[in-house]
């Protein structure tokens, strides 16, 4: 009886999937009539980012037809590598079909992932990457966040001025890559002086403190290159009590975008680019993984690039509703905290998602999973230590894609 119903539900589920996907009939016949056991492994760093990414995945897993198809378990391991490695191993022995994870180390988890692959467990990492070739990594990292924002700053400064660099976590590969990317641009301009360089730990609170210190020492700063937690930079500038604000580049916190949208702050000199790490990368990774798992897509590439968000100050538009309709890309502060990462959904990649998905992990009422565009997968360039072990980074790794150098050294 039970078996029968489950069979029926699966049949129904598959039918819908097939309908939506419009893919070949054989594929559904082949797919086994069972729930996929999927583990979401987060290495808790404790900032809102972690929760929002996982919420998107939970929301998608609860969106028909995946709600019938997916048995999702979330596992949080501490901030040390062994803990997460042990978690992977436990998941494999618990019979996971797939693991989608935010890896804490780009290299430290390779063994555990390798073992998982050998047991035919599909491993997807989102946002952060690993160098183990058998894993699929979905990330924006390689999309040129640092060089583009840095170049934008240089253009803005006409090639001369004092700049702060707000870095992430010392000794982290992404931090190094962002730094190298930014410096690859700044070095070209001898008139650009890096007067302070500090670690904001990718959270608003530390960023604000470190920025405040730097501002006190260098009130004459002309621009600030920021990373995640950049709303702290704006907060620090406002708290420092100087009239004059300076251009800031950063990632996608709602506080930052609202500040960019704020008219009188703009008048005081605030300007900037909101770019970098999109929450939605986890949703995209999950959908991609499901399509590969259900056999509806063969993913050939290991490292998949997520398109770099790029929102200049004048493009910031506060949404009235709970979705990004007619080009709005930020939410009123009554709806989300400043540290909320806004880039939560993409009309093309994840139309199923809404604000509540990101905030509470709940599916959007009435929404059903939409298939990803057929040729969506974009291979990411190799970056040694980030997404491949022994490899050469392409010479044009830090090429400019969003802006072009308008000033010349």
């Amino acid at each position, binding site marked *: 009886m039970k078996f029968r119903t489950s069979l029926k539900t699966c049949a129904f589920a598959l039918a819908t999937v097939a309908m939506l996907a419009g893919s070949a009939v054989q594929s559904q016949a082949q797919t086994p009539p069972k729930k996929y056991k999927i583990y979401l492994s987060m290495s808790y760093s404790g900032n809102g980012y972690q929760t929002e990414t996982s919420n998107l995945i939970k929301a998608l897993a609860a969106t028909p037809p995946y709600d019938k198809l997916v048995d999702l378990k979330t596992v949080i391991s501490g901030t040390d590598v062994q803990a997460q490695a*042990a978690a992977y191993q436990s998941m494999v022995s618990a019979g996971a079909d797939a693991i989608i994870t935010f890896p804490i*180390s780009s290299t430290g988890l*390779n063994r555990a992932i390798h073992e998982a692959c050998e047991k035919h467990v599909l491993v997807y990492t989102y946002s952060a990457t690993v160098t183990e070739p058998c894993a699929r990594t979905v990330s924006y990292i390689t999309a040129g966040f640092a060089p583009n924002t840095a170049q934008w700053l240089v253009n803005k400064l006409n090639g001369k001025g004092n700049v702060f660099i707000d870095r992430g976590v*010392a*000794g982290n590969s992404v931090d*190094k890559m962002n730094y190298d990317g930014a410096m690859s641009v700044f070095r070209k301009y001898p008139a650009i002086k890096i007067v302070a360089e500090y670690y904001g730990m990718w959270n608003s609170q530390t960023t604000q403190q470190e920025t405040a210190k730097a501002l006190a020492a260098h009130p004459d700063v002309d621009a600030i290159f920021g990373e995640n937690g950049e709303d702290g930079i704006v907060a620090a500038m406002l708290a420092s009590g100087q009239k004059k604000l300076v251009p800031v580049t950063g990632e996608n916190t709602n506080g930052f975008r609202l500040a960019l949208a704020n008219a009188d702050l703009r008048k005081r000199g605030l300007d900037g680019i909101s770019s970098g790490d999109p929450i939605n990368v986890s949703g995209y990774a999950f959908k991609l993984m499901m399509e590969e798992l259900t056999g509806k897509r063969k993913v050939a590439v290991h490292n998949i690039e997520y398109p770099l968000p790029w929102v200049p100050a004048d493009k910031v538009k506060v949404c009235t509703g709970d979705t990004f309709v007619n080009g709005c890309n930020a939410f009123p502060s009554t709806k989300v905290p400043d540290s909320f990462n806004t880039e939560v959904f993409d009309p093309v990649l994840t139309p199923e998602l809404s604000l509540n998905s990101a905030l509470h992990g709940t599916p959007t009422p009435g929404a059903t999973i939409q298939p990803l565009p057929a040729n969506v997968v974009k291979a990411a360039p190799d970056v040694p230590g980030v997404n491949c072990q022994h490899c050469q980074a392409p010479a044009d790794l830090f090429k400019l894609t969003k802006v072009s150098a308008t000033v010349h050294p």
Partner: protein
Amino acid sequence: MNTFASASNSNAPLRPDAWYRRVLGDGTTIIVAILAVLTVIFAATQSDALSASVLTDILNNSLPLALAAAGGTLVVLTRGFDLSVAGVVSLTNVLVAVHGGDGPLGALEGAAIAVAAGALVGAINGYLVAYWNLQSIALTLATMIVCSGVTLLILDAPGGNVSDFMTYTMTDRLGKIVPVALVVAVCVYLLWRALRRTDWGVGLYATGADETAAVLAGVPVKRVKLIAYILAGVCYGLAGFMLTALTSTGTPNAGEPYLLLVFAAIALGGTSFAGGRGGVAGSMLGALTLTLLQKVLFSTGVSSFYTGIFQGVVMIAAVVVAVFFARVSTRGEVHA
């Protein structure tokens, strides 16, 4: 019993404590018990719990912590605290990843580097604590910070390349039976047994229990401390080395989690922070317990959000039980 009672029947033979008292008094007993319980739960809740591969994984994952805890124990036995463990593990981790060579010889070279670096840091700590009377906890904090600085100079992002020999052979099973990790652990333990049976070993316990009396009895207290810190450094070095093999990479802040975990393991192992009581074996088992606990919490499906609570409770429980048994086993002693 009081002085006069014993004085009056002072010719009644005095034999060593009954075995059960000694067993109870020894903190290791408690940790073994806890370990047993956890293993049973684990075996009951996870089908392949006792399979060779799972066991090897657990041993591999807990070995670095076990080694670090073994080192920390030596310092705790002298009534000291050594926070430098975090720095030294990171440091040796990147040193091995960057300078370690290929094949068995390369691994050996890496181990040598790690041990040397650890010993050096340990020597600095030990000298300043023993001969300059600096507060161990504060000094080693400074050493830790400096070490992590040096680490960042050597490697400013995860990297280095670790030979396949280390990555795979060193974490495999010898002849498909005995996990290398187990072999390493046993070797370290045997080494400790040997050291315990030297004048330094006896002096270590004497120093920790009562420094004044130890001096009166002619124990070279300062040298004993110095050596303790050096050997601790060596253990941290080995921990960093094995961590490199386990993670097959050098990570500049790999040691940070160990800072507090080490002391958790030591406490679980029944070593007294008042010095002079406990041993390395307990601490290594304590480390194993912490790893196994994670596994059990997973297999029993405890919501990951609350794992911390369980770890903390287990720690406290272990110490309380140890304190209690210690009292039981030492009841009726004359305190002169």
